[in-house]
């Protein structure tokens, strides 16, 4: 018996020392000696966003839009190939968002079908109808293509968002996929969530389109744009004419000459004369070539620079532009220009994203929450500690000591496993402290019963532990199970509560049952246990 006491005591001392080592960074912080970091843990207990402040966002990627864009591109490809092969009289249209409708004269049906089979394996034929000499074929992307396209849209969005956040400069952001179409973004400690959201949420689809000078703007506004054209708006301001903030309509050719995918770099340039700062784009080599062709072919025409369907500027092309540099001017201040450069550098999102959940907490609320949590922790535990001493005297003191070790172990495990402490998590620590002494209550009550039944102290203690144990295990298993379910279901802060609940239950059983037992076994080993204070 004596040896086993020594071994168990040694185990607890090791566990206690290890706990202190794990908790030292949290409580001592910068006061640790320099050699500490070389071979000892330096992770502090991780605070959740609700305690340290920050933003939690869930973004939904509009994957259907990505499919539509793709179909639009395929439509263009089909038209081009048919023209190349000299098949004429075929009309190609996008219908119902994600379908392509072909109207083919009877003579060309077979050739068109050959082209579709040979060059467009990713398309599936939904329906074929023939009436009065024309055959209509409805096409859509096949299932596999559709799935990989949606997947790609979400993955690519995630990468782009990660790039943007990295450039924005947030320490320890969390960016991960959630479910089929959602992306979770956590930005701890950011001061300006609004700006972060704008940077993350912008699609940033940059397009170069020609202004249709032949069209009359007023007439287009009244009767709709001529075929092949569209109306987009710019916002007047410095340099562009019109009062600041006023909407300026443009009639543009719908065809996109070039997109932002050729951008190699984007930089903010200081203001020239009266204009605000502008963003200079540096194109990669193939982009530079394409841009040179476009500008050469359209000298003296106006080229509109469109970002997310908003016209930033539409300068007249004075001459052929080589060297792959273009600039976006507009009425923005230095901060807006810098954000725009970040977004353009990081690339466009393959599909628009929408914020479907936002939880932002300011840093001052977080520190208030911590203070309130600590106060209720101290008060709650003091009540329990005092009650146990009054009610169980010596055995109560023993339970209180176990309670303090339970808290030590619980915090140390949270630090060691890099678990996140949230406000509900703190509430969980307080609550668990109230439950931790339950095992001691069950043991002590049983010992009292055995004493009343006339047993000697020694056998009363032994019987007390033995008979109380099954109920202790059962009660803790049930609470643990509900903690697991909560962990499965919960999000963010609630998960923090579930984690502290589950870990806390494990540590209470260890300290309340096995640790207190060492004390009794020690006393029984040294001399006969004749009196116990309970």
């Amino acid at each position, binding site marked *: 018996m004596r040896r086993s006491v020594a071994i168990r005591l040694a185990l607890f001392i090791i566990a206690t020392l290890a706990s202190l080592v794990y908790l030292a960074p949290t409580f001592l912080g910068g006061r640790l000696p320099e050699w500490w970091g070389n071979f000892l843990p330096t992770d502090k207990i991780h605070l959740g966003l609700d305690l340290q402040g920050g933003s939690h966002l869930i973004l939904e990627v509009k994957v259907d839009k990505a499919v539509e864009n793709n179909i639009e591109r395929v439509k263009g490809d089909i038209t081009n190939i048919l023209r190349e092969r000299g098949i004429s009289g075929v009309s190609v249209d996008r219908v119902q968002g994600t379908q392509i409708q072909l109207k083919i004269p009877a003579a060309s049906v077979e050739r068109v079908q050959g082209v579709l089979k040979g060059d467009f394996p990713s398309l599936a034929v939904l329906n074929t109808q023939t009436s009065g000499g024309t055959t209509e074929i409805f096409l859509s992307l096949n299932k596999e293509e559709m799935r990989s396209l949606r997947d790609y849209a979400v993955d690519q969005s995630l990468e782009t968002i990660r790039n943007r956040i990295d450039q924005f400069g947030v320490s320890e952001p969390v960016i991960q996929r959630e479910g089929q179409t959602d992306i979770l973004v956590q930005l701890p400690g950011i001061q300006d969530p609004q700006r972060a959201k704008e940077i993350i949420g912008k699609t940033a689809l940059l397009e170069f389109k020609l202004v249709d000078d032949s069209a009359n703007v007023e007439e287009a506004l009244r009767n709709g744009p001529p075929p092949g054209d569209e109306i987009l708006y710019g916002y007047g301001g410095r340099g562009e004419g019109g009062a600041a903030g006023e909407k300026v309509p443009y009639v543009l050719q719908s065809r996109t000459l070039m997109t932002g995918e050729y951008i190699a770099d984007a930089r903010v340039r200081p203001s020239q004369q009266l204009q605000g700062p502008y963003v200079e784009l540096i194109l990669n080599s193939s982009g530079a070539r394409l841009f040179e062709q476009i500008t050469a072919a359209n000298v003296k025409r106006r080229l509109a620079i469109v970002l997310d369907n908003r016209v930033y500027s539409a300068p007249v092309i004075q001459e052929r532009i080589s060297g792959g540099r273009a600039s976006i001017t507009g009425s923005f201040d230095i901060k807006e220009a810098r954000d725009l450069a970040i977004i353009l550098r990081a690339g466009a999102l393959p599909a628009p994203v929408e914020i479907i959940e936002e939880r*932002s907490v300011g840093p001052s609320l977080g520190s208030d929450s911590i203070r309130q949590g600590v106060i209720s922790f101290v008060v709650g535990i003091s009540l329990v500690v005092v009650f146990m001493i009054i009610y169980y005297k010596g055995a109560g003191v023993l339970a209180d000591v176990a309670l303090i070790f339970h808290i030590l172990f619980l915090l140390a495990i949270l630090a060691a496993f890099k678990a996140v402490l949230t406000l509900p998590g703190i509430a969980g620590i307080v*609550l668990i402290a*109230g439950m931790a002494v339950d095992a001691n209550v069950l043991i002590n009550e049983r010992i009292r019963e055995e004493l009343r039944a006339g047993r000697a102290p020694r056998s009363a203690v032994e019987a007390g532990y033995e008979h109380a144990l099954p109920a202790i295990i059962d009660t803790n298993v049930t609470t643990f199970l509900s903690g697991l379910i909560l962990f499965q279901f919960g999000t963010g802060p609630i998960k923090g509560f579930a984690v502290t609940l589950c870990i806390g239950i494990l540590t209470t059983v260890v300290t309340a049952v096995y640790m207190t037992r060492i004390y009794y076994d020690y006393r029984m080993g040294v001399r006969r246990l004749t009196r116990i204070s309970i």
Partner: protein
Amino acid sequence: MELIKPGMNIPFTKYRHIAVGLSTVVNLLVLVFLFAKGPNLGVDFAGGTVVQLKFSQKVSIPEIRTALGSLATSETVIQDFGQQDSNEFLVRLEKTAVEIGSLGEQLRTGLTRHFGAGRFEIRRIESVGPKVGKELRQQGAWSVIAATIMMGVYIWFRFQLRFGLGAVVALIHDVLVTIGALMLAHYEFDLTIIAALLTIVGYSVNDTVIVCDRIRENMRKARRESLEAIINMSINETLSRTIITTGTAIMVLIALFLLGGGVIRPFAFALLVGFFSGVYSTIFIASPVILLWEKGRTSGAQVQKTESRRK
């Protein structure tokens, strides 16, 4: 010190008809209330936005409403939050036409125009889209139901089927009573409430486990007693444990309720109600269910025979 003197024998099972009758009425009322009016859903479940504001000087609720301008509709709820004189308010905006991400900026603009920059602080914004809310609501309800069933199965596995049934009925009672109390106190249902309900399910069953454990032990010892007498004896013998274990939890919950701040208060309130209810339901609901199940099946004598054969 002793709370319950040993040898005490309160005939709890005698009052079971009154208790079961009363509890059935209460539970039915909660159910009617729940389905007729529906619980007061927080943004987690209903969607919408909640904003916590703190001002550096005294402001009135109508002033805030004016400052919000078009953001505030007739459905917007503005209420005091936090301690007295802390000038903190909680603004609940129903599903607005404004996109989730841009709401903060609009709020800031409106408040700055009315109160001046630096006079207020937007401490917290939580916005949840309607789709997310619906998903969370269903998952939350299912997790509570699943946990309740799981407790029943565990007790069935560890003890007997009738004990498991008793525990499940008692847990349903506790959850319903807590939901009713939350509705009466006008607390909103959100994710922390689901966390509280799950904790209640996991913890309230503990008292039932302790009593069942004693019933099983007493059945072995006193075979000639009727089941009712054994149950009654067991409840009395374990009464001090039941009260003290829950009592220490209630002590820390009172500290959390009073000092833990506005976010934790509804959570602590739910747990307080649920834990009190847990003690009551163990004594007055779980035990009668065990008795009823037994009486419905066989007479008392046969029970003891089957019991002794099992050993």
